[in-house]
């Protein structure tokens, strides 16, 4: 990027993509509500919305990639991207904070309260306020489940994600040295680790549902467990898709040693997902 371009602002043309995105969310919300309320054909509308959303994302991101490859993004745009990605990750941190907050509140406050108040002694006298719990009402009805231990698949998954943090950094070093094969190899390994993680997580969920009686409905433990690990898993999926795009772009010869913020943004996101997992491993799987 030449210095001469840094004093010119980049202003994109009018674009259809945002309104297509709004149409997609409209369809997804209508379809989603119909599915939840068990109204016929809701699933098709939801799928259609999802299709439009994927179409929009491919179209919009392709346009941004074309802008980038045409050299329209100067240093100021690069700096805008850095600020905005940082703030976006901050918003993601706060999203997870809501669910971690729910975990702390129930574990530390509301479940113990359920075990000590007089009212509860009348309602559910047999309830022992320990963690993990499916709650006094479900337990009284004979509901049972096995909590998820830390040292089986979750420990392997921790190892996988931590390793992937190393491989993506190694790929970045390759990019900075203009060593394209190191970049591609590093990204490919990261993608493989991400895909393996998702596969193991899916296997763990299957096991929980079929063998352990641990479901979304398994009281507040099941709810916090699946919502926290589920949203994390979804973020790993999104991160993996982003890494795959970076891999394909690297193979296509995109990025230079100096100008590659898309790659950096994805690696920031990946490290963020990594940190969330470490917190999950300690607070959700290990300390129970």
């Amino acid at each position, binding site marked *: 990027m030449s210095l001469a371009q840094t*004093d010119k*602002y980049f*202003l*994109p*043309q*009018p*674009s*259809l*993509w*945002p*309104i297509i*995105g*709004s149409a997609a*969310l*409209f369809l997804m*919300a209508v379809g*989603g*509500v119909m599915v*939840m*309320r068990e109204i016929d054909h809701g699933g098709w509308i939801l799928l259609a919305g999802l299709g439009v959303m994927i179409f929009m994302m491919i179209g*919009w991101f392709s346009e941004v990639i074309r802008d980038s490859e045409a050299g329209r993004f100067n240093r*100021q745009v690069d700096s*805008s991207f850095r*600020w*905005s990605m940082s*703030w*976006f990750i*901050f*918003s*993601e941190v*706060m*999203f*997870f*904070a*809501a*669910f971690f*907050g*729910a975990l702390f*509140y*129930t574990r530390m*406050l*509301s*479940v113990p*309260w*359920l075990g000590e108040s007089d009212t509860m002694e009348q309602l559910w006298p047999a309830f022992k306020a320990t963690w993990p*719990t*499916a*709650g*006094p*009402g*479900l337990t009284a009805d004979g509901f049972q489940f096995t909590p998820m231990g830390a040292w089986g698949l979750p420990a392997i998954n921790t190892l996988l994600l931590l390793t992937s943090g190393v491989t993506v950094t190694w790929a970045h070093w390759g990019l900075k040295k203009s060593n394209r094969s190191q970049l591609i190899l590093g990204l490919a390994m990261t993608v493989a680790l991400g895909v393996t993680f998702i596969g193991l997580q899916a296997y763990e969920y299957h096991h929980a549902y079929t063998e352990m009686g641990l*479901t*979304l*409905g398994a*009281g*507040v*433990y*099941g*709810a916090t467990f699946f*919502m926290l690990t589920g949203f994390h898993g979804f973020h790993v999926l999104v991160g993996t898709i982003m890494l795959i795009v970076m891999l394909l772009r690297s193979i296509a010869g995109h990025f230079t040693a100096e100008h590659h913020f898309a790659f950096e943004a994805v690696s920031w996101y990946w490290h963020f997902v990594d940190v969330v997992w470490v917190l999950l491993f300690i607070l959700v799987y290990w300390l129970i």
Partner: protein
Amino acid sequence: MSDAAHAHDDHGHHAHPTGIMRWLTTTNHKDIGSLYLFFALFMLFVAGSMALLIRAELFQPGLQLVHPDFFNQLTTMHGLIMIFGVIMPAFSGFANWQVPLMLGAPDMAFPRMNNWAFWLLPVAGFFLLVSFWLPGGAVAGGWTMYPPLFIQGGISYDLTILAVHIMGLSSIMGSINIITTILNMRAPGLTLMKMPLFVWTWLITAYLLIATMPVLAGAVTMLLTDRNFGTHFFNAAGGGDPVMFQHIFWFFAHPEVYILILPAFGIVSQVIPTFARKPLFGYASMVYATASIAVLSFIVWAHHMFTVGMPVTAQLFFMFSTMLIAVPTGVKVFNWVATMWKGSMTFETPMLFAIAFVCLFTIGGFSGLVLAIAPVDIQLHDTYYVVAHFHYVLVSGALFAIFAGLYYWLPKWTGHMYNETLGKWHFWLSVIGMNIVFFPMHFLGLAGMPRRIPDYALQFTEFNQIATVGAFIFGFSQLILLTVVLKAIKGGEKATTQVWEGAEGLEWTVPSPAPYHTFETAPVVK
């Protein structure tokens, strides 16, 4: 405005879409700012009509006009729409128009995302409004969406939750855009501590939005899964706790009330120096006070929950931390008054609304201080005293500041002076009407009238009748506002570049109306 677009052919070597496609695909901050403002104006009348229906029902004790369940739908939707569909979009509209102009930037940092942030709002707004016609009607559990009520409702509850998600998405994208614009698009020489105060307040507001909107998204997601996917977040039988929703919700919603007022502080801090013809008194202290309010807003949330059951230490903590907010707010009020002190003041409509803001917002602030005292709040919780309090800060606070900003910048946007006589009529009818509606509500609340109930005991009749008369005066005087805006768009006295004698800042250096593209080469600020 299309003439202005052609005037810049050196930039516009491409054909701009016209008609409806111009607005659907626009990446221009001025177009998007106008879209936000028109959306807010439309929704103001929608949610305002709901308020008038509520007041009409409350004109007499007993049930007159509407079914109690519909009454609950009205109070819920009035709140949701006024917050998410009027005040917030109006401030976003101001930010879109003014932040680039005030910073000497050619546009927002991310013009395409800017478009999307706006065009999500009509989708969410449609979902909220259409729910009135769905089986079971619109949501009736209050804008705070507390479980278990919110878990028991029908289809419109799911739709409203998704509408909140979409509005949250819009706010987060809008805020990331604004914050990036402010941090990265300032003209050379325009350091942070030289920025106009409106920009400062929006910088801090955007931070609050990015920090809290995802928390709201999490809270309503838990509602959604409790409703449809068998989780027990808010169900004690499963080990959850309905009060937990209130904690998570108010962790979002207390910063949210500052989101609704900080940009208003910013607007008033632009208007008062202009018409007092003096620089703002204590600029740096204004910045620090705004930042302090934002920090404190994260540790006061449970003052909304003094009656739900909380350890006494927690009550004391939230009581005292809430009172602390009076300090930076007091600094601000002092600075506005000191700015006017010995100024060469004139009283055009924007200044009138700004002065009314300072007086009436202060009343709302004081009643907030009263409610911060836990033992008093336990008496007043969910009474009309609370209704009086938050309407003083949101109507004579946020909305009056929006009116002040609208009259202040309308000549810059349209190129025409608004009709000053009509503006004065709008001001006086609004300020009188507003006080007639909401001042008696203090007495009603102190006497124990509960809110969100369509019927009341006989002794509350007189004050309710006064309030209803005031509501209709206030409501119908907003038609004057509509007339003023439409007239200024169509024509009128040509506005000069500086518009106001005492106006200072980059936005007053571009012609009126502001051309379609401004500051394509950055100005240098000394």
